[in-house]
């Protein structure tokens, strides 16, 4: 750290080196590669601290990027008309009755059943670990086998950020991540495509619930619906509303 302005003074008197700007530019672009090299090669306590700091940085970056994206896309939305057109008599009433009905339903169910759900598919085939998780080999000689990749459809929340790839034990591929499900109302026989809020319970194992794995029989929490198909085979999630 220079402690006086002698560098600036020299620059003022004699100007920059002839290749100064080019060197500066190239150094900055090399910085990215050097950073990544360091992150890979670091070991020990230093590595732990560095990775922790870097994870926090990444989350912040993601948030700001999302914010910027929203600002940009907002301008486009001003031209397009929003979805969900309703007639004038429904305009001031959006979602009110539904939310009330849902919360009442939930409260009633909780009082009655104390944790147990009356589900349309009570008995579902339990899926073993070998079926749901695939072993990924890593390491220079492909000998290490501690990583697992989920082979079924899963749900991750909105603010999901991956763990640093070096330390990730469970990999949830982006192609198998779903946000919406086709939910059928059993009485009216009408089907709606609704966003998923979360996975409530996976009958096979609690580990799958925490991971967000969706298989046949999972209870998802958009409006409390139970999955009725094998989403990894069909490419879509079909569910029945629990009324």
């Amino acid at each position, binding site marked *: 750290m220079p402690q006086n302005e002698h560098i600036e003074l020299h620059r003022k008197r004699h100007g920059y080196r002839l290749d100064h700007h080019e060197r500066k530019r190239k150094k900055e672009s090399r910085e990215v590669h050097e950073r990544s090299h360091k992150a890979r090669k670091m070991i020990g306590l230093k590595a732990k601290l560095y990775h922790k700091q870097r994870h926090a940085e990444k989350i912040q970056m993601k948030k700001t990027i999302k914010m910027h994206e929203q600002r940009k896309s907002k301008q486009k939305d001003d031209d397009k008309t929003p979805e969900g057109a309703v007639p*004038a008599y429904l305009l001031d009433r959006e979602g009110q009755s539904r939310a009330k009905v849902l919360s009442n339903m939930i409260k009633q169910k909780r009082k009655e059943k104390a944790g147990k759900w009356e589900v349309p598919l009570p008995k579902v085939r339990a899926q073993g670990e070998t079926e749901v998780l695939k072993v990924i080999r890593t390491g220079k000689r492909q000998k290490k086998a501690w990583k697992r990749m989920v082979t079924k459809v899963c749900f991750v929340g909105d603010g999901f950020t991956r763990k640093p790839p070096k330390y990730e034990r469970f990999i949830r591929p982006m192609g198998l991540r779903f946000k919406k499900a086709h939910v059928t109302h059993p009485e009216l026989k009408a089907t709606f495509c609704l966003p998923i809020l979360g996975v409530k319970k996976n009958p096979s194992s609690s580990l799958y619930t925490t991971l967000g794995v969706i298989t046949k029989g999972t209870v998802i929490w958009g409006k409390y619906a139970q999955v009725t198909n094998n989403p990894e085979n069909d490419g879509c999630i079909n569910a029945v509303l629990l009324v």
Partner: protein
Amino acid sequence: MSVDVERVLIQLQDETGEVLGSPFDVPLDISPDKLQLVCNALLQKDEPVPYLFFVKDAEVVSSLGSCVQELGLETEQVLPVVYQPQAVFRVRAVARCTSSLEGHTEAVISVAFSPTGKYLASGSGDTTVRFWDLSTETPHHTARGHTHWVLSIAWSPDGKKLASGCKNSQIFLWDPITGSQIGKTLTGHTKWITWLCWEPLHLNPECRYLASTSKDCSIRIWDTVLGRCDKILTGHTHSVTCVKWGGDGLLYTSSQDRTIKVWRAKDGVQCRTLQGHAHWVNTLALSTDYVLRTGAFEPATATINPQDLTGSLDEIKEKALKRYNSVRGEGHERLVSGSDDFTMFLWNPAEEKKPVARLTGHQALVNEVLFSPDTRLIASASFDKSIKIWDGKTGKYLNSLRGHVGPVYQVAWSADSRLLVSGSSDSTLKVWDIKKGKLNADLPGHADEVFAVDWSPDGQRVASGGKDKCLRIWRK
């Protein structure tokens, strides 16, 4: 007393109490058909008109004798029998979906037939208003211009113009024949348009003035020829939900501030405020609604191919005035209002501030009320999945029509007041027979909620549109 059949003296009266002829002798087992013949003969009409007969508000169904026995009336005195003329023509119930018209790219929010039943227009969430050709049941024109959802549409009573209001508070006027805009865009409101209503034909055959209400708590009267706002009526403190232009030159507006205000259309002065509701007032209905909507068109003269109105402005005005007077009768127009507090009020707004009757019974908010075209009945559609029928004069509860499994959004009467069609959020339409009080036909077919229903004034078709973006036409 005669040996074979008892006889009784009856005096025929019409609904207002005027007697017809003098009391005469009839056997007790006389049936309504024979009574009809007698009535027609006495009234000396050219064509026989069907009638319903009532003894002290109980209908004579099989024979006069059974009615008298039930009521326990003396046969010694003169019995007053009230006769009610029914519509001469009979509208057949719709039974099948003849076409499902795709074209809109968003939910269909409003549907309306023109006053003669010749044109059909629908407004939708994709900001277009589409005109449909009814003889081929195909799209006719697409009117583009709005920048947000088209919330309400209204035909002018002569069927030559269509006004549409959108969520960006703009009003456009369209020509149904070419599908292009007439005149300028009417801007002025600051929030979305909730209802549009034209001036009645018999007050002004040119159909020049249009009233619009908006969430910005004001009502504007527009001069459509000059393309500018004529009057602004303020007074409400919350969103104005509905406006009806009465045939006597009075404007009735309902609002979310729980009041209904009566204004004079000529100078925009507020005459009265009708208070009584405990929550938002959602909808209004005038007893003369149907006749104001159809103007000079008489549904009884409808033909298979609907025609435009012919004749000079004066002729049309005369016809409209005659029809209006015959429907209105002796008294003033009656107004019924439906509200979020699960009740409705029947008002006589031209005369007094106090309601005539309070119509309770619904278990959820009342979304729409409608007088039948002959003003004798009121139908109310509510979010408690039922439709209730009330007497149009006294407000007495008559009947409840149950069958829907979701909130009933809209209802429409057929032109002869015998049938009612209702659309609901459970994606079905149901046709009800009013006389029997039961379901006539169930019309499934929509894939999602049904937002708007309309019955054409010539009685041939029902059009319905909903969230599944397609418009369906139903015929017998």
